[in-house]
């Protein structure tokens, strides 16, 4: 059984006066049902020019299943941002160098992950861990 762990560390010495912020969390990625580790993944690197909304991940899996998404805007220009959209809802913006890690309900088209570059051609790296996934049939 595959073992995948995701760990986060968030720290700041001066965000909260008098309180050194230190958040640490780690979880093991499990399939829906939570007895078996996730065994399916895809990783990639993408370059997205300004002006088009791109589909980063089509929701071809099962609704309400355990899936995880990592996206990092690896651009180095501070003016380059990535808008992240779930279906038609704007989730938020990743500045250059910023990343996200989130659960993903990838059951149908209403859960598609879309990205759009702001400021210039963004470079992204991403990894998607899935409970279930079938390759599309060849045309």
């Amino acid at each position, binding site marked *: 059984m*595959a*073992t*995948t*762990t*995701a*760990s*986060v*560390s*968030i*720290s*700041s*010495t*001066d*965000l*909260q006066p008098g309180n050194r*912020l230190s*958040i640490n*969390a780690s*979880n*093991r*990625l*499990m399939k829906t049902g*939570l007895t078996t580790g996730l*065994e*399916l*993944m895809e*990783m990639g690197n993408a370059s997205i020019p300004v002006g088009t909304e791109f589909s980063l991940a089509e929701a071809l899996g099962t609704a*309400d*299943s*355990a899936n*995880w998404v*990592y996206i*990092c805007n690896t651009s180095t220009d*501070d*003016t380059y*941002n990535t808008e*992240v959209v*779930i*279906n*038609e*809802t*704007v*989730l*938020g*913006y*990743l*500045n*250059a*160098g*910023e*990343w*996200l*890690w*989130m*659960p*993903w*309900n990838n059951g149908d088209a*209403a*859960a598609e992950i879309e990205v759009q570059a702001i400021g210039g051609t963004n470079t992204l790296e991403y990894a998607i*861990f899935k409970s279930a996934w079938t390759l599309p049939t060849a045309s």
Partner: protein
Amino acid sequence: MAKSTASLTINSDILSSTTNFTTISTLTNAGGAVGMTQAQGLSRKTTVSTAKYSLLEADEFTANKAHKVYIKNTETSTALYFTISIGDQILGLLYGGDWGFFPWAASDGTLATFTITLTNTWASGDTLTFDGLRATSEDTTGDAFVTLIAELDYDNWTVARTSAGVATFTARSSSYTGLIEEGTDSDDWVKTSSAGVNTVARGVTAVTSVNDVKITPSTTASHTLEYMLFNE
């Protein structure tokens, strides 16, 4: 400038060769030049029903900035999970021990507004009650009464004197979509006055924000999560 960093480490043996990577980012305001200087939390919330809860309300924050949300299901039982949503859009499921860190646009809704205009004579001691708060006139003019009303702190509305004898009310939340009754006999305002006239007119109609961060527990058992918002 404040410096906050967030790092993610993934270790996996899904592939035949081990996958390990670490990503570190400095949390900055939109534009990337200034470190993020505001935060809410770290907080905990415990739920005891399967109702959908608003964890973060978009109306309270500036839209389309570089806000980031950290959220963790602190339950040890993996059977207790939260469904995380942005408005009505389901993001995913957070099982016991799972955590997430994602950007948040905090796109605002539209806040309802209305005006109340006080005319004729308002005797000292006349009252107007709205939103659970009673205002008592100390003068005879409508404008003086409006000035007094504008200093009150209503639970669900902010208020300002916008012209002589006129106060404009703005809802604190876009989720308040009720329609205030218009006219001189508005049931939403309770008046005691022999001669004073209050006229209510609706302004902007509310549009509920579709960007609140919401959580839906999987069961009625006690579920606890912790969360923190890094915001501009």
